[in-house]
């Protein structure tokens, strides 16, 4: 009994001395905040080795480079700008500094390229009597082709929405699925929609995560599969229209759809963004977002900088003046040609 009491007393004193404190304490000095941001990226950002290799910088060098730009008299806005410049070197849309002043970002993945999208024109194709199934807008074009627009994976779609939509479009010759301008959202929505386009389980990619603070401390990649939905599934050709603004969950959706046999991806390379973002914070109280878990395609290749389409296509400005979206028109032509060829092949 006495020994037990002594053990407990000893442990109490040990606990009081060993109690952890926060890794960082409140601090508004520029150097402390730059150090904290540099360390968060150094230890937790999942593409550091890959970005160093692809973009030709050394993260270790950037600490000294940007520390030299700091001074103790600088304002919060100036500090914010320096910190944003440092993380902009990563060219990652998932890396942000969020403050009451502004949202620090690098959107070069879409801003440096043509958008290949005219939203007013797209609306003309939808018309005014199109259907809305949660985040999905759809109609049937005059040549009996389904036209579906999904603008954001942040807009939830339910199984009922998908079943009703596919049931309504079931007599169409094919589908144009237009996700141009879709910059991501919920991965579960991307997965739910993908499951309507396969009749068998398909390997679509891999995902892993960091297991330690080293740049290359990763878990074993875990295979990701898309299993067919038990509800109504699409069995006809699909043209998936993409552009540089397809990012994050939309990029993952394109990765999934590229493994589906009846799907052709058309447009420009996607924007990328294959790291699942996590949040942390700086001593000054600003929120930091960064990529934490990298996803790969089915061949274990990086898709952080985007996915190439099966058919490159851009928006023809001269046709825009005529009220036509050249990418939609090309997709219609491909589907119509496909269905005509099938009609010729089938026995009379």
């Amino acid at each position: 009994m006495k020994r037990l009491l002594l053990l407990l007393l000893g442990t109490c004193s040990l606990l009081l001395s060993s109690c952890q404190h926060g890794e960082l304490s409140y601090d508004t000095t520029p150097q402390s905040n730059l150090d904290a941001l540099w360390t968060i990226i150094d230890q937790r950002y999942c593409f550091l080795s890959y970005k160093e290799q692809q973009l030709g910088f050394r993260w270790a060098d950037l600490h000294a480079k940007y520390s030299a730009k700091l001074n103790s008299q600088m304002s919060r806005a100036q500090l914010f700008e320096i910190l944003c410049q440092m993380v902009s070197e990563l060219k990652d849309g998932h890396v942000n500094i969020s403050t009451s002043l502004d949202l620090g970002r690098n959107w070069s993945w879409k801003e440096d390229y043509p958008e290949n999208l005219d939203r007013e024109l797209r609306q003309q194709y939808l018309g005014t009597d199109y259907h809305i199934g949660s985040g999905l807008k759809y109609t049937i074009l005059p040549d009996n082709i389904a036209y579906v627009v999904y603008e954001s994976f942040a807009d939830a779609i339910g199984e009922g929405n998908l079943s009703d939509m596919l049931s309504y479009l079931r007599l169409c010759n094919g589908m144009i699925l237009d996700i141009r301008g879709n910059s991501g959202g919920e991965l579960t929505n991307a997965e739910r929609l993908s499951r309507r386009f396969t009749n068998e389980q398909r390997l679509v990619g891999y995902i892993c995560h960091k297991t330690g603070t080293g740049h290359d401390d990763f878990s074993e990649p875990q295979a990701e599969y898309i299993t067919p939905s038990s509800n109504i599934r699409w069995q006809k050709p699909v043209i998936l229209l993409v552009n540089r603004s397809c990012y994050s969950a939309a990029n993952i959706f394109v990765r999934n759809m590229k493994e589906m046999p009846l799907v052709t991806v058309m447009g420009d390379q996607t924007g990328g963004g294959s790291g699942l973002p996590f949040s942390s914070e700086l001593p000054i109280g600003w929120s930091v977002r960064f990529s934490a878990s990298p996803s790969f395609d089915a061949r274990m290749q990086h898709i952080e900088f985007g996915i190439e389409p099966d058919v490159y296509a851009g928006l023809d400005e001269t046709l825009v003046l005529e009220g036509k979206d050249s990418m939609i028109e090309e997709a219609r032509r491909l589907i119509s040609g496909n269905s005509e060829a099938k009609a010729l092949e089938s026995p009379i």
Partner: protein
Amino acid sequence: MIYDLKLWFTPSQRGRGLILMLFVSVSLFAEKTEYEAVSDRSPAARSLLFGIGRTHQLDTYLSPMEYRGIQVSFLTQSERMTHLAKRHISFQSTFFGAYTHTDNPAGTADYQGGRLAYDAAWHYHYSPLLGLDLKGGALVGADLGFLYNSRNGNNPAQGRFSADLSLSAGAGYSFLVPLWHGRRIPMQAHYQADLPMIGLMFCPEFGESYYEISQRGVGHDIICAHPGNSLCLRQLLTMDVCFKRVTLRMGYLFDIRQSNARFIKYHDVSHSFMLGFVRHFQLMRVKN
């Protein structure tokens, strides 16, 4: 004279009256039941305490900053002597629940947390002096909780689960405090400390998202917990003041939960002032 009850009482009053009459009838005509005490050594006690206090929380999965704020909690405890070891061993069960709300030092983000814990303890009692009761033993317990950050994106929350075997020791001292006119009021001070020694706990890997956990299950995120990676301690100091019909209990709860595993540091250190009451009773069994 016959009175019409419909004129005197509302329907709901009549309903309640019928139930009361039924209860009185059953009580009057029921056979007189005899009871005997289960144990003659000590009565059982059950307490219910409510607490409020300060808490410090750190979870580097969510943020490297320590958040501070308030905790409101309840603790219900029951203890009774068993027949084991010549009635020197008691059984104690404790149920604890807490809600926390804490802010980061800059005041730009906050955590909301919840915790439920249950444990069952067996103590061997020893009385070296009159009024002094020392006890030592072990307890098994389980702890379930969460911490939610209102600002984070894909890592908005952290789940907590642990099940462990702990060492437990305590002491109680009963004494009388003199009041006016020779009256004395009985009081009892009690202290207990519980130290988890070995168990299991949930801990995701350093950069593992809950999306991945949902894909492949939590099996590989359950790890062994021991004082080397999870040094925790709960201490409860109470003072009972016995009045005629009720025993008031005041207490101080100092609870440290912490772990350092898979490069994720976590702690939740709380100090709470507890206030409640104790009910003493003697377990009886029906005499055959």
